[in-house]
């Protein structure tokens, strides 16, 4: 396999684990329990499963389909995939969303991921031992992040962990699909599941203290159906399904582009979604909230859940570990599982961008990977320095929240409506090991696009416009005058990325002589691509 040849997956299980690793992230263990607890428990779970059926699973199939279809033309990036679906000059420029989102999310996500790496070591060596209150641990966390009153760490600490985390990501990426990403998934995913099962068992077997683990589960699964008629609950569950499956990111499509026509995507897609849901519903719901309720009581856990996901993971759980036998080992396992959940997602984010530079400009994989790593490093420093000014929250909202819905809506419209439902259906069934129930053709054609447009409009009116006008903060906290210049810089960088990718896409099309109206050359995939 030459350096610029199209890559392939080593095995089917490796592919599914890599896809599931892409989907399973920090949100499975931190965001899900908090959302479930804050949105009525039972009401949330009902709307959550409906969203999984009407939005999550259809989008999972659609993204696998868009990706593999792009792969027929050796396009592992969103501009190319959209241009392959819609022979129109505008198609490639719509794909710029699918380049900006993974790059921006990768940068701040890797920074958050570095906290988990740092805290796994801090746990192992009992560095935060002695901070036995929630407030004390929040002070420890903000000290590590470089602000707040406490001075627990040297100033270089967050920079060092960010650099190491980013270097590991880029090294894995530079090793390629089967040599790096697949091997990471084969190690990371089983480790993650083993650690999560051990932690769930330890938490659920705890004796009653201020509360009990059973009360923690009651907190999540309380059948409070009174809130099923609230739009906010439906949006919260749809949002959680969206984030947890990593749809609208461009990375699932990039992974699927390395498949051939003979490879199944229907069964693989559902297996990926099911793996993610197991990590989220069964394991994610059995660790953090039950632990918080057991050690802080129901009222305390409610206050923690409302204070944010990071406080739950980085302040509450360390306080809990300090009260358990072998707490340092359990803490190490908790933060390691978060690290593996994070890294198996973050390595996926740069895959479509790497594919763009390799396929369109002929760069070597290693060159592209390390060059992108340098860009991520430079812009990642901004997040470390300006974290307290809402710099990260701004990117998380525009790229990691609203942007995902925008990209998903674009690709659903192009793959289902422009490419035509019959072609979409045929594409999903090429090489398929299962027959997707016919009802999903109707769901994908009408229900999923309507669901997405509803979310897009609702979020646009209720959040995007007020945040854009700086009437409210992207992070949900207080918006001060001091933060506004940094928010503008934050948005400026996203605009800069957008302009840069528009220029690069234009250069790529010109350089390769693509004719938007004629489409790309279909690559003969026999003997290359796919699963070995």
């Amino acid at each position, binding site marked *: 396999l030459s350096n610029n040849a199209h890559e392939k997956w080593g095995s089917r299980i490796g592919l599914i684990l890599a896809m599931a690793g892409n989907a399973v992230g920090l949100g499975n263990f931190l965001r899900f329990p908090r959302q479930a607890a804050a949105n009525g428990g039972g009401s949330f779970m009902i709307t959550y499963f409906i969203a999984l059926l009407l939005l999550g699973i259809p989008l999972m199939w659609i993204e696998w389909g868009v990706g593999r279809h792009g792969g027929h033309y050796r396009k592992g990036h969103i501009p190319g995939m959209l241009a392959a679906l819609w022979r129109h000059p505008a198609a490639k420029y719509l794909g710029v969303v699918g380049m900006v989102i993974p790059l921006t999310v990768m940068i701040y996500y890797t920074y958050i991921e570095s906290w988990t790496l740092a805290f796994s070591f801090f746990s192992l060596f009992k560095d935060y031992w002695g901070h036995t209150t929630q407030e004390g641990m929040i002070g420890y966390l903000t000290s590590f992040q470089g602000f707040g009153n406490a001075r627990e760490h040297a100033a270089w600490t967050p920079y060092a962990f960010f650099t190491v985390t980013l270097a590991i990501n880029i090294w894995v990426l530079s090793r390629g699909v089967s040599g790096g990403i697949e091997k990471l998934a084969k190690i990371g995913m089983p480790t993650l599941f083993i650690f999560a099962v051990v932690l769930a068992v330890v938490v659920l077997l705890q004796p009653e203290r201020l509360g009990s683990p059973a009360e923690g589960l009651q907190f999540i699964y309380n059948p409070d159906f009174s809130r099923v008629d609230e739009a906010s609950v439906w949006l919260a569950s749809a949002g959680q399904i969206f984030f947890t499956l990593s749809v609208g990111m461009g990375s699932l499509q990039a992974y699927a582009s390395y498949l051939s026509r003979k490879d199944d995507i229907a069964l693989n897609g559902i297996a990926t979604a099911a793996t993610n849901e197991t990590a989220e519903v069964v394991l994610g719901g059995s660790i953090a909230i039950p632990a918080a309720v057991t050690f802080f009581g129901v009222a305390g856990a409610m206050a923690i859940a409302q204070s944010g996901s990071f406080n739950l993971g980085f302040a509450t759980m360390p306080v809990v570990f300090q009260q358990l036998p072998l707490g340092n080992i359990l803490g190490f396992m908790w933060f390691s599982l978060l690290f593996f959940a994070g890294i198996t997602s973050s390595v996926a984010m740069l895959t479509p961008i790497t594919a763009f530079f390799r396929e369109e400009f002929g760069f070597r994989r290693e060159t592209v990977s390390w060059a992108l790593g340098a860009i991520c490093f430079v812009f990642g420093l901004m997040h470390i320095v300006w974290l307290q000014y809402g710099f990260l929250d701004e990117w998380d909202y525009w790229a990691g929240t609203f942007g995902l819905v925008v990209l998903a809506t674009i690709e659903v419209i192009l793959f289902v409506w422009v490419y*035509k439902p019959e072609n979409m259906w045929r594409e999903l069934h090429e090489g398929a090991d*299962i027959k997707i129930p016919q009802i999903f053709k109707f769901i994908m054609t009408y229900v999923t696009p309507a669901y997405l447009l509803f979310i897009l409009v609702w979020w646009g009116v209720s959040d995007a416009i007020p945040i854009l006008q700086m009437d409210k903060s992207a992070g949900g906290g207080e918006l001060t005058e001091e933060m506004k210049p940094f928010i503008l810089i934050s948005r400026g960088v996203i605009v800069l990325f957008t302009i840069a990718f528009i220029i690069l896409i234009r250069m790529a099309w010109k350089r390769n002589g693509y004719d938007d109206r004629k489409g790309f050359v279909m690559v003969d995939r026999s003997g290359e691509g796919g699963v070995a």
Partner: protein
Amino acid sequence: MSTGSIVFMVLSWAIVLSLVTWSYSRVLKKKAHHDPDSIGPASPPQRGAAEGKVPPPVDH
């Protein structure tokens, strides 16, 4: 924990675990490909079949 919560939790877990068990049992079975075109996995579909037409010749 109330009976309602237990029922709800068991139901939620059952849905997810059934889905994962079913999908992995199918993945590991290595069953023959579903074959909507009646061409068979040994004979790859014709180029451009997914689009309903054969794409134009190479011109760049």
